[in-house]
């Protein structure tokens, strides 16, 4: 008994964040994933310092076209003599920013609507949830394809399309989380002292609903990168000559018979990024939400 008391106080002293970190850092997969995510983020942020966009990324060099991987060109060169390794490296910036911005769009819209639905209930909730049902009744990929092909091919429309299709999941998760804390005493207390609804939602309710939202956001970035590259592959993504990974794959497809390395490497880049994000997300879920731990 005394021992458990001691453990509890020790745990409290360590604080919630430290406790989560303790859990997270014990998960090897999650740590490896996070490390890779950090490296990728570094490459994405400093891509223009590492490489010169005009000469090394989009600059053509027909004399060295279609070369198989070698010491000079690690991943080979494409049909215009551009180094595929450099293009993939710089492409990190496009693919990751599409993933991040798209999920941020979905997050902001989804969390706001979900919080409103969960907090106010009633007719407002009905309207929001039924609209969410309608949006999610159309398969995500189809919806995204329709949106981009209507709005036109550009990186912003790509972000918007992938973002909109991830709204329903955030609405549902946030609403469910808000419902569990809505009737807690501290919420009633905030109401009693006359706080405005906006303050209650953003300062008192949402901070207590963060765990499932953070986990969902991490995993969503992973699937958003795949969706974005799929759209680019269909020719609906970032316009040429920007080296987005999906566009690289779609470009390599024409040469698949004789120059298969052009197909291999961009896909590998997508897979490693998504795998790292998934491992990080799984680790976050285990440490943030002990209930879900199996």
């Amino acid at each position, binding site marked *: 008994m005394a021992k458990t008391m001691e453990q509890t106080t020790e745990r409290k002293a360590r604080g919630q964040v430290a406790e989560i970190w303790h859990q997270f850092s014990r998960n090897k997969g999650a740590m490896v994933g996070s490390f890779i995510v950090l490296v990728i983020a570094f490459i994405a942020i400093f891509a223009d310092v590492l490489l010169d966009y005009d000469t090394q990324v989009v600059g053509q060099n027909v004399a060295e076209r279609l070369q198989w991987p070698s010491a000079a060109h690690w991943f080979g060169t494409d049909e215009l003599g551009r180094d595929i390794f450099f293009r993939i490296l710089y492409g990190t910036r496009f693919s990751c920013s599409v993933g991040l911005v798209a999920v941020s769009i979905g997050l902001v819209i989804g969390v706001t609507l979900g919080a409103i639905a969960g907090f106010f209930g009633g007719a407002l909730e009905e309207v929001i949830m*039924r*609209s969410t049902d309608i949006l999610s*009744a159309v398969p995500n990929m*189809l919806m995204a394809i329709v949106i981009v092909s209507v709005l036109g091919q550009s990186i912003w429309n790509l972000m918007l399309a992938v973002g909109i299709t991830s709204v329903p999941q955030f609405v549902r998760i946030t609403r469910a989380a808000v419902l569990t804390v809505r009737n807690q005493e501290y919420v009633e207390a905030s109401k009693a002292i006359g706080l405005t609804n906006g303050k209650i939602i953003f300062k008192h309710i949402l901070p207590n609903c963060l765990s499932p939202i953070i986990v969902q956001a991490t995993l969503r970035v992973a699937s958003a990168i795949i969706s974005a*590259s*799929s759209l680019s592959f269909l020719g609906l993504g970032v316009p040429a000559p920007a080296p987005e990974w999906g566009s690289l794959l779609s470009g390599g497809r024409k040469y*698949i018979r004789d120059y*298969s390395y052009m*197909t291999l490497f961009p896909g590998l880049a997508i897979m490693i990024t*998504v795998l790292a994000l998934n491992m990080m997300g799984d680790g976050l879920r285990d440490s943030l939400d002990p209930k879900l731990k199996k």
Partner: protein
Amino acid sequence: MHRYIIKRLLLMIPVIIGVSFLVFFIMDLAPGDAVDLMAPEGATAEDLMAIRHDLGLDQPVVIRYIRYMGGMLHGDMGISYVSKTDVFDTYMQKLPATIKLSFASILVSVLLSVPLGIYSATRQGTIQDNISMVLAMIGLSMPNFWLGLLLIIAFSLHIHLFPSGGDQTLSAIVLPALTIGTGLMATLTRTTRSSMLDVLKQEYLRTARAKGIPEKTVVMSHALRNALIPIITIIGTQLAGVLGGSVLTETVFAWPGVGRLIVDSLNMRDTPLVTGSIIMTTILLSIVLLLVDLLYAVVDPRIKAQYIIKRGRKKRG
């Protein structure tokens, strides 16, 4: 149960209206319409106007939408702007290929993941378990269309085992089904594993073992049967997902299904065909998901009981 089915079917109506509204209006935002794309070279502005008038495109969008929905009530989904064929017929022509591919993919996924999930669950924490879980995670992280391309490189360009596309021969389905199936495998393996782990801890399995039943029978018949519900759920949602979302794989393998139909008609700005196909796909998915829900009740009497309890509560409330 009947009431539940009717209620679910009725709930589909507002969703279908909502989806058609959404798709119709998004398509209307597009700059340029089918007429610009299909007009013969040298057509005058008057010619274009005449074509628009014939197609009803000179009317405001709300009027066109109401007309469209009026037609739908009679089962008429309009005529394709481009091929001049009936939308419903065109969709139905492409549907069998998508259904064939979907079932083949689900078969691949089930045959690979259920045994792997059981294998992992019975060896929880061992190296074999960890390797299978890492493989599942890799499968989840691989862009599907890329896997398709890799399979084409390996099995169609290097060893000429399977065709790289089309639907002419029976063996043509192998690579696309393998592509989608492997993509689905990750989730299904993980679900099978965790569901089996839950069941393996139950006491009635200890009883079964104590009675001297061989371990194989305990796992395969006593445990698996009780672990089935989450597995069926995932198979059902995956089936719905594949029916509606194999656009990429259909493109990679030139598979003549619904996904390609939608992408092609989008490129042609063929609004009736796009709207009709998406509405049909949505209806199809809702029906599949409803069937899955009903299947639980068949598999598990406890769930059937829940439907009845819910109804009882509502009556009282």
